[in-house]
């Protein structure tokens, strides 16, 4: 039996379905991320688990107990909000112990727990401060401590890092994951940031228009996307229009150039198809004498450099074929010259790197 079971969850607002037949089983101690664009239903699903939205239909079961109609304050679920939601009239210590106070715990228990939580979030000196005296990152850590202090069954995090700057986000998400692992608590994390979801989750649920498009580990989601939406939403993806030339040998024509694919997962009935190809799977070959040799079994496409974007550790080069463009990523090499605008190049990639997705 899974620790948290979401069965056929549906939520209707007016005439539209914000969440449509959502099914998910989560094991104890698992860290699950809901990933998707704005309006895909991830926060609505989270809020149904928290008890802030009543499902139109479906069931929510936590450790064998049906909590679908239970009020939020009876579910013992900790929640961390995007806006921190610390109580402005209380100190850090008072915020953290609030759940324990409501539960009627003794002063000694509360004091000990507050000390433990402050050590866990590495803010032992802030006990007597008020929320407005803390930075955003500190406030979010206190919010996390408050949500964990009363030992909830499940921890829910609704885009907790989106109000913070990029550098703090990276450190804090690692801290959140580390704390979750240490405590072994089941967690659901809502985010629209794919890097966040992929880097800290045991499994990722990619959502779109109220439905779960794919559920899998970060590696599965990224390397083997099951739908065009997942392929295009997660990571950068080239989606090229192609025509089947030789079904038996799995050869496609992309702008009159031939490409061999390894996998065709959808029926091909003579209509144009979409071929997905990750930018990092492409190797760029320049016409210079020092250019890399194209492996014999690789696909090769001829094109012209249209743009070069320096992204720090990665250089993204846009190449025009005939009618379509392809993005190729390579690691930044300070000793290598970047290709010039208009330069003729060859793109090579293995056949298993491309898939027909629609």
């Amino acid at each position, binding site marked *: 039996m899974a620790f948290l079971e979401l069965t056929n969850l549906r939520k209707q607002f007016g005439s539209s379905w914000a969440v449509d037949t959502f099914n998910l089983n989560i094991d104890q101690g698992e860290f699950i991320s809901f990933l998707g664009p704005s309006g895909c239903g991830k926060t609505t699903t989270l809020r149904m688990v*928290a*008890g*802030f939205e009543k499902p139109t239909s479906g069931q929510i079961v936590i450790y064998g107990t049906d909590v679908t109609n239970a*009020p*939020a*304050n*009876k579910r*013992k*679920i*900790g*929640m961390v*909000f995007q*806006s921190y*939601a*610390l*109580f*402005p*009239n209380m100190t850090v210590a008072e915020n953290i112990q*609030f*759940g324990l106070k*409501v*539960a009627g715990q003794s002063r000694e228990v509360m004091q000990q727990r507050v000390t433990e939580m402050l050590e866990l979030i590495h803010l032992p000196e802030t006990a007597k401060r008020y929320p*407005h*005296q*803390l*930075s*955003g*990152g*500190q406030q979010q850590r206190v919010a996390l401590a*408050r*949500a964990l202090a*009363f030992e909830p069954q499940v921890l*829910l995090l609704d885009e907790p890092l989106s109000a913070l700057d990029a550098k*703090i986000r990276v*450190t804090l998400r690692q801290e959140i994951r580390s704390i979750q692992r240490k405590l072994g608590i089941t967690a659901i994390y809502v985010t629209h940031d794919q890097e966040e979801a992929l880097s800290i989750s045991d499994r990722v649920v990619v959502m779109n228009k109220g439905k779960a498009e794919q559920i899998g580990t970060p590696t599965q989601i990224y390397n083997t996307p099951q739908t065009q939406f997942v392929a295009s939403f997660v990571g950068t993806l080239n989606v090229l229009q192609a025509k089947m030339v030789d079904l038996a040998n799995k050869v496609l024509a992309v702008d009159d150039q031939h490409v061999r694919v390894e996998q065709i997962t959808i029926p091909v009935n003579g209509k144009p198809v979409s071929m997905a190809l990750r930018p990092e799977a492409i190797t760029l070959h320049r016409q210079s004498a020092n250019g890399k040799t194209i492996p014999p079994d690789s696909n090769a496409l001829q094109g012209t450099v249209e743009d070069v974007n320096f992204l720090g550790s990665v250089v993204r080069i846009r190449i025009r074929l005939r009618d379509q463009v392809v993005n190729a990523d390579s690691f930044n090499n300070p000793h290598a010259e970047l290709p010039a605008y208009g330069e003729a190049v060859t793109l090579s990639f293995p056949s298993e790197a491309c898939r027909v997705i629609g």
Partner: protein
Amino acid sequence: MEKKRTSLVAWGALLIGMLYMGIPLVATLIFSVSSKLHSVTAPTPISFSAYATIFNDPKFGAGLWFSLGAGLLTILISTVLLVPLIYWVQLRMPYLRSVIEFMTLLPIVIPAIVLVFGLLGQYRGTFLTNSDSGLYVLLTGSYVIIAFPYTYRPINTAFQAINVKVLTEAAQSLGSGWFTIIVRVILPNVWTGVLNAAFITLAIALGEFTISNALAQNTFSMYLFYMETKIYEPVAFTVVAFILTWFFIVVLQQVTKRPAQRATRERSAQLIGGAIGLPSASESE
């Protein structure tokens, strides 16, 4: 040159306003310490006998305590009614806000005399009009109604300044019921608005005359009525009423200024710290 002219105009308007407000006040004060009528512009000798008369009059103290009691009761009833109402509208029924705001206009538009005679007519022959305690209840109820526009606004403004929904959900996720949420989370964060409303209500209770007169209640403002045959005592009473009102306003300012003062002190400390090279809170993360 343009800026200097604007400044002169502004100062001139301020001066005229101050004279317009100040001259009658000063004249009232001078008259209240006059011993002879013809000495109003330069009272000789100065006499505080009018003040002594009113402070020694038992009706003055009785009226003051009566009005303070009615005022405090009005504050309690208004707070108990309005805080949950505004909270619930903010949380679940924001579409009702415009209806309530319309209702706050009614006590301003409808004269107090219409209100009180309407109440008397409605409850004629009942306990509310046939007994002293019933009339006291009518008086307090009337105060709650006429103070409604002035109690609703500051409390509503205080609610607008906090994220009611998120704070409520945070408290619910930690196991709180509605009572705990309102008492421990919401009320402390709208307390400034409640205090604002309280002091305004008190000022209304002390100064209100029409309803008190119609219900024949011995309120603070009715003392003026009892002294209609005197000369200096009503003026002295006016000065005392002014001083009391200003006292409440000063107390209100001090109480409600504290969070801003605290923020100003902290900001000053941050600026000083930054100037001498100490790290800020975000840098120390």
